[in-house]
């Protein structure tokens, strides 16, 4: 679904990532680790087409990112759920509308989906907060809401940038469980995280692989965890 073929990415100054090749297939479950500033967020952005590689080819669902129109990008985003690091909500809309936003913008906000929304909010423990505005939420609540929004379209791929950074252990287990369930339904999941405990916990539930970013390269980590 996402094919990265020898891609590199450089910001104005120097190269941040280089010689990256990776193919994300249905049912894959990846963790992405590495020190802060190593390029985890950049890597995820390359995966959903927010950034275009400076060399090499990135293909999303068979389409080269360079040849994609703006509408192609919009369509692709509907198939890739993204949990943004800073959550990115519309602050004037209540939480439930924010979570349902992907449905709204794609014109799929029908009744079935509304029932779905309630179930999803209950799952992430935000049923009581459905009418709160995003600025009224705690960091953890925002992250849970961001995850709910990322999965509401039942996307083929879920990319999550530090989805458990601000939540307690129990809730991070719960979120992980949600991602594992989605993965079992054939969705690909990529989670960027610092949290080694989370990775260990996931390994007992799912066939997860760990990608480590070091020295501008992305390597598949061995059994060192």
């Amino acid at each position, binding site marked *: 679904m996402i094919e990265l073929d020898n891609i590199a990415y450089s910001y104005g100054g120097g190269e941040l990532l280089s010689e990256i090749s990776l193919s994300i297939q249905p049912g894959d479950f990846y963790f992405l680790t590495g020190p802060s500033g190593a390029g985890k967020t950049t890597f995820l952005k390359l995966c959903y087409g*927010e950034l275009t590689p400076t060399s090499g080819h990135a293909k999303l669902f068979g389409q080269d990112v360079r040849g994609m129109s*703006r*509408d192609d*990008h*919009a*369509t*692709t*985003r*509907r198939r890739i759920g*993204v949990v*943004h690091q800073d959550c*990115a*909500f*519309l602050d*004037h*809309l209540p939480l439930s*509308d924010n979570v349902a*936003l*992907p449905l*709204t*913008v*794609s014109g799929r*906000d029908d009744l079935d989906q509304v029932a779905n929304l309630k179930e999803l909010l209950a799952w992430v423990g935000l049923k009581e907060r459905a009418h709160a505005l995003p600025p009224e939420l705690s960091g953890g609540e925002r992250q849970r809401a961001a995850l709910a*929004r990322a999965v509401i*379209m039942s996307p083929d791929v879920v990319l999550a940038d530090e989805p458990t950074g601000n939540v307690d252990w129990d809730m991070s287990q719960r979120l992980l469980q949600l991602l594992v369930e989605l993965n079992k339904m054939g969705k690909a999941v990529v989670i960027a995280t610092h949290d080694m405990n989370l990775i260990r916990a996931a390994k007992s539930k799912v066939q997860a692989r760990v990608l480590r970013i070091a020295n501008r390269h992305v390597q598949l980590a061995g059994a060192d965890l």
Partner: protein
Amino acid sequence: MKALLSDISAVFVGDAQADRVVPPTGFTARLTLFAAGAMAFLAVFALALSMASGRLAQRWGDELAQSSTLRISAPVEQRDAQTAAALRVLETTPGIAAARALSDAEQRALLAPWFGPDLPVENLPIPQLIAIEETEAGYDADGLRLRLQAEVPGAILDDHTRWRKPLQQAAGRLRLLGGLAIVLIAAVTAAMITLAANAALAANAKIISVLRLVGARDSYIAKAFVRRFTLRAFLGAAGGTVLGVGAVLLLPAAQDQGGFLTGLGFQGLSALWLVLVPLLAAIVAFVATGAAARRTLSELR
């Protein structure tokens, strides 16, 4: 074309959700309303001016076109004979409905503004005037001149073209200026709405990037802005038009003295043009906001 029509219908039918996605901004909204209203107010006056000058040109043209004057400048002893001869010629000229020599009293009245009421006209060698009324079809002025030259050497025909042309020209120019003013008003409205839309798009850059992140197409995002500005321009212009018409109605009514300004009102079917003012404002806003949104969005990722 179909897509355009559905876009236009979407503006009026609306999508409540798309509308809520962009937060309302009271200040820009009020400014847009005010600007559209002020421009519509001015447009009403430009329209009134343009129509009044159109009517004026027509009236001058009509009144002067249907009449002409024959002047007989002959020695006093030949005057009556030549007048009679001229009347005979005029009676047999096709295209002339009536011809009548002005009486001394009438000639005195014509001269009174210049020489005072007590002028002894009968003692002065004043030329005799003959008023000619034309039929609808009119007559051949050059042919008549030739015939008069042969039979009534002292006759000079004035068919008023000399007067009519510059008057009509002036009125026509005035009308053109009115039209130009309307075009300029529409252009300024477009410019202001473009600025307001750009400001709104810039102020909502974060919202736009969130919408893009969750898979919104440009057309969806643009619609929220276009709908808003189109409605604002329409409502503002409708208000401005009502106020403008009210102001025009408050002008003194047209009088016989042929006052120019007092004839500024809207008469009959021409009032229908007023309906077009808010519609034009809405169309201008629709196009301007659409263009601004497309330009801004294409610069974002």
